[in-house]
């Protein structure tokens, strides 16, 4: 288990992250979320030993985190951090060798991950010739090649198309099953919502909310009715708001009972194309920020 207790980091007088605490067990995914400059990357950099914390304690399996163990973490940075004049295989093997992995092991792991991520045809290509999405996949291979126990993915979905987003989700499920700890930060809440087990939401360094995502959602009794037609009005009983997103109407209802009443009504009126959803992660965040500003 990785435990962070009261982690605080200042940049001069500016707060990087303040009093952040969380625990994450093996085989689970923690989403560290927040707006730009909220302290997500600072948290990752402290965990990786790139910057020193000002206060707090970080432990792994009960012991203080040993920053000299360079193989513990696999890191996928937010930006493209590669030497573009290198070939893909040279870039991957260079970073792997820095982790003190033997050549045979590097070759075996590289074969595996390039195949898994469907980028084996780019093995001898120069990094600069790759598309943004493929560069991201190469970076992913760099983060995985030494088989780290903890993975930090900072904005992993940047530049990935739908197919590769699916591939990334399958990868995370696989890593979870293997008992790895995964920390993810992303602004694509709809994509990571079904991926993360726990979340921490940061706002300007402060922890806004945190915990198991399912439990957190239970705190929000509201239900969302998604309809193709504009047949429910904002003034109707139990309706909090009506929002048009694309071609659909998202009707926010007070609670599950109200939602059930509307579902029965729609069935009576023989409206077949509708769905009932729980509050989304994005809505939870919006609510939380709204609360905070109040």
């Amino acid at each position, binding site marked *: 288990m990785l435990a962070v207790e009261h982690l605080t980091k200042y*940049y*001069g007088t*500016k707060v*990087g992250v303040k009093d952040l605490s969380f625990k994450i067990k093996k085989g689970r995914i923690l989403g560290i979320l927040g707006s730009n400059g909220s302290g997500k990357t*600072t948290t990752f*950099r402290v965990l*990786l*030993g*790139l*910057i020193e914390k000002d206060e707090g304690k970080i432990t792994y399996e009960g012991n203080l985190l040993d920053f000299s163990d*360079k193989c513990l*973490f696999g*890191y996928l*940075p937010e*930006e*493209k*951090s*590669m*030497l*573009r004049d290198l070939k893909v295989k040279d870039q991957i093997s*260079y*970073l792997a*060798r*820095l*982790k003190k992995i033997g050549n045979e092991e590097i070759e075996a792991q590289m074969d595996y991950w390039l195949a898994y991520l469907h980028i084996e045809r780019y093995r001898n290509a120069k990094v600069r010739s790759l598309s943004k999405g493929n560069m991201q996949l190469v970076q992913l291979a*760099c983060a995985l090649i030494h088989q780290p126990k903890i993975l930090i993915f900072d904005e992993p979905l940047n530049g990935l198309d739908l197919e590769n987003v699916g591939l990334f989700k399958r990868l995370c499920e696989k890593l979870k099953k293997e008992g790895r700890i995964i920390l993810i930060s992303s602004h694509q809440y709809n994509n990571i919502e079904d991926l993360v087990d726990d979340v921490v939401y940061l706002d300007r360094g402060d922890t806004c909310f945190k915990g198991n995502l399912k439990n957190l959602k239970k705190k929000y009794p509201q239900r969302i009715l998604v309809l193709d037609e504009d047949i429910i009005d904002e003034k109707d009983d139990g309706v909090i708001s009506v929002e048009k997103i694309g071609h659909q109407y998202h009707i926010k209802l007070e609670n599950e009972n109200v939602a059930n009443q509307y579902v029965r009504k729609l069935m009576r009126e023989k409206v077949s194309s509708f769905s009932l959803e729980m509050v989304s992660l994005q809505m939870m965040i919006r609510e939380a920020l709204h609360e905070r500003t109040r």
Partner: protein
Amino acid sequence: MKELVKFSLKRRFWNSAAILLNVLLCLVVCGVLFADKLIELVNPSLLDVQRIYLNVDEKIENALLNVESGLDFIADNRSSEEILDKDSKAYVLYYEEGYKLASQYEVPQEMMALVESLVGDVHRNLMLSESLSIEEMEAMNQSYMIENVVEYESIQMNSDKQNLIFMVITSIYFTMLSFSTSVANEVIYEKSTRQLELILTSVSAKTHFLSKMAVGWLAILIQAFLLGSYIISGGFLRILFDEGRGLILLIRQLGLFMIEQETILEFLSSIPIEFDFIVKILFILFFLMMGILLLQMVLVVISSFIANIEEAGNVQGPFYLILLGIYYFALSVNTPYQMSEGIGFILSFFPFLNMLFMPCRLLIQNVSFIELSLSALISCIFMALILSKGPLVYQRGVLDYTSKGFLGVMKKTLKRSEDHEKK
């Protein structure tokens, strides 16, 4: 660290640009070693043997005409002005209250010395021969020092030693600048591509800093080794070709250096390889390498605060101007007085500056072992200081996510390291 060094060196030397440059360098070395043959192809008149018209005593004239000297002596009774009007590259040796060598431009010292020694030899030989009358003996006994009469204009020539020091200072300056900047730019590149962030998740900032120093140093040694091997191979080819006779003749004709020997091997065997000479060379190399290392450290530390190439120009620019100032200053104070007791003497004890001033002193005069050791010790202490504090500042610099600037971060880092030491 081994991987970092290996990777950097491979990137630096095993790429198409570096290979092409080395091929060019090899060609340049061969070009220099076979310069006479190239000139023969391009402009053969440059290789014409120096013509010296003689308007002297008949016996001297006859003797000089029979001497094998590599010079082309021609008897001619016309006046020097007349001869030089027709043949501007020629010299005219005549006697008018002493020997005079007339020329359009000032005759190189080596050539003057050669003609003087030839005339001297002729005088001595004639004096030893029994066929001379007493008057002739008296005439022969007179001084045979030659005065150069310049018909066109006088150009002041530098002495060999001054030339040598100028060459040493210039070489040191460009060596330190090019090698130090390449390491600094490597750091800037890694930082601007964010590769550094990934590297530092695998190695400590201190290891990365030290690896950059090692890369800088090894790059110099490898480049020196490559250049040395090109020179040795080219020289070997030249020796096989004609023992280097043509090249030495060309050097003499162009007045570059005064080489008395006829072949490269004779020249090499005439170099006095004494213990003192070797010690001097070793000390010069030591100060050069220390200076480059110090400069590299400082530049790498500064570069760690630079986020992109544009910023690099702003920060490194003034630094290079300072170095250029030091270079010109070293050239201007390059006098025996300044180097023995003036500012050059004092600066030869300063870390980094001793890279320029101590070699100059070593070339001009004999420097005591105590002075050399003191200067080397000061450099070592300064280097140890930078080695202990440098990585801390470097770590802050490469992972600087604040807007405090170089001085602010450095101050804080140094304060923090002091606190750590106290604890």
